[in-house]
């Protein structure tokens, strides 16, 4: 809505909101890099995730091995390789290697467009190329999501998810008046947490954990 001076208040408000969100994002990013722990607020309390120490890494290694053996012993579980074969042998075959090859082909096309985008001076021409690259990237991402979904039940994925959750259980801490204490006292308490708040907290903690660690320890 414009006033007498022709000032569009809604537009200004949207711009200010965007700038404030950007500032929030920058502040959050700065908080994530200042040291090797990440603190965050959730439901009025302050939590943090940190890198696991040597003892915790050893604990994680042991539970990982145990879980892997347990998963492989179960005849209902299949490895990624077996699942790929099962999918290929279906009446309507799903060819994962071909889909992965398509992802690489998309990447080559995107990179070729990226070269053209850099060498193109005219903005309208460049925008057209950018749109083409964006739509290829969307197709590439959709294909990747589909592969992830199709392979979500394999042993490797189950093990990866288990390790990520266990890591959160190990390193998620809550600030008390004087110091930091483990949020979940034991793994049973972690596994039995059923309310939505805990689920959201675990989800956020896992997100920050991913920013701290290079690989699953």
């Amino acid at each position, binding site marked *: 809505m414009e006033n007498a001076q022709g000032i569009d208040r809604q537009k200004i408000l949207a711009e200010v909101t965007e700038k404030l969100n950007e500032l929030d994002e920058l502040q959050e990013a700065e908080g994530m890099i200042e040291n090797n722990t990440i603190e965050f607020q959730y439901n009025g309390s302050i939590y943090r995730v940190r890198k696991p120490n040597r003892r915790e890494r050893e604990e994680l290694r042991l539970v990982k091995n145990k879980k892997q053996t347990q998963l492989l012993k179960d005849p209902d579980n299949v490895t990624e390789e077996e699942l790929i074969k099962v999918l290929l042998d279906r009446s309507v075959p799903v060819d994962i290697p071909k889909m992965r090859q398509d992802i690489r082909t998309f990447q080559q096309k995107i*990179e070729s467009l*990226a070269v053209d985008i*850099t060498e193109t001076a005219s903005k309208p021409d460049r925008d057209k190329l950018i749109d083409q690259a964006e739509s290829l990237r969307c197709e590439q991402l959709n294909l990747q999501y589909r592969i992830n979904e199709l392979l979500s039940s394999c042993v490797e994925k189950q093990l990866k998810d288990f390790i990520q959750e266990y890591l959160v259980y190990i390193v998620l801490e809550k600030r008390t008046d004087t110091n930091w204490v483990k949020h979940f006292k034991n793994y049973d308490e972690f596994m039995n947490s059923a309310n939505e708040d805990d689920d959201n907290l675990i989800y956020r903690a896992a997100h920050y954990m991913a920013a701290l660690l290079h690989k699953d320890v």
Partner: protein
Amino acid sequence: MFKHHDPIRKLARGFHYQHLYARARELHGIQIFENVSDLSKIQIEFLYWLALYNRLYQDLLMREPFLTEETINDDFLCDCYLIWEDKVKRKKELERIKNPARDYSRDKKQIDRSSKIPSVVFKKC
């Protein structure tokens, strides 16, 4: 590579951290993070972007072709430029090292496809 804005990259190319990075390279007492060792993944990524943007700002001063301030400030265009560097510029540089006698003056310049003005080549008579 995708059209989004990564706050870590924005921080890395900003004046504050670029200045801190330049000083930290000259003076050894200056730290960028609270911890000096056991860096997290995001801290290592941040250092990568700090160094990369530092190089891009230097290249901008050297008037490298196709590199503009807009390119540096836009994650997507910057990614495109880095791919171009990797695929075209490096290849040309290697070629120059291998074959220094060739005439490179006619190499591809930035294309303006929308321009209706015919290109004119001035030659000495």
